């Protein structure tokens, strides 16, 4: 699992595990998907097979602390999550792209909320609506996992970050 640089002293030891626990909780409870840690080498192998990535970013802010949580996942995983969440059968018509983007946004929203609840439970954060953008490729960064054998990254950043234009 990759190290996340979290500012002290806001976060207790084991903060990285909080991020993994949040992703695991969301993937397994809401999307009924299996999640596993992934090293950079394995991630690069898996990522090489995908050229249609989506990145969903949520900004959090409580007036004193601000930052973002970004999830990057290939289109195949987005569709897998969509099917699990909506109950769509593989034989059903393809979902609208707007529905898939909405779903990817909600996935990141749930991870961000679950992580903040675990990591900084005593503070009240405002979360931005998700911004979802398309990417051709991703580099290993942040927490690397596989969800149903497909690659996914979850990155936590602190401080002001540029706003993204949603696709």
């Amino acid at each position, binding site marked *: 699992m990759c190290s996340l640089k979290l500012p002290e002293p806001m976060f207790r030891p084991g903060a990285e595990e909080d991020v993994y626990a949040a992703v695991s909780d969301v993937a397994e409870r809401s999307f009924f998907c299996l999640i596993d840690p992934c090293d950079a080498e394995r991630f690069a192998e898996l990522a090489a097979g995908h050229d249609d990535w989506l990145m969903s970013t949520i900004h959090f802010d409580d007036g004193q602390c601000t930052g973002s949580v970004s999830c990057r996942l290939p289109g195949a995983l987005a569709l897998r999550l*969509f099917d699990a969440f909506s109950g769509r059968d593989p034989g059903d018509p393809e979902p609208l792209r707007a529905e898939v983007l909405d779903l990817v946004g909600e996935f990141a929203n749930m991870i961000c909320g679950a992580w903040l609840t675990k990591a900084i439970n005593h503070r009240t954060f405002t979360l931005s609506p998700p911004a979802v953008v398309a990417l051709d490729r991703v580099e290993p960064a942040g927490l690397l996992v596989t969800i149903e054998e497909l690659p996914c990254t979850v990155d936590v950043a602190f401080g002001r970050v540029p706003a993204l234009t949603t696709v």
Partner: protein
Amino acid sequence: MRILIVDDSAMMRKMIRRVLALVDVPIDEIFEAANGAEALAILQEHEIDVLLTDINMPVMTGTELLREIASSKRWINLRRVIISTDGSASRRDEAAGLDVRCYLEKPFSPEVIRDVLLEVA
């Protein structure tokens, strides 16, 4: 029972609808709103029994919506439930002051929604 689902994610509203269809609770009608302002408009027009609302939404947040509701005697019997990714202690304390009956954290299972509806029904 008439239920109003308030969430800026259409997928989440659809998912909650799907879960509501699975629970063994009599439901007459389900309404949807994408933010607090839309929810207020529906509340003005219809008699709603149970409000299921998210917190972080554009235009008008769930907290702002709950404050509006709490400021009027018209909705004194409206049962209020928060469904949010934000389960912080401070947010729960805030909700407790706004007559919120249940606070549900996402992700949730269908059984939890059923239990909440049975509790507030």
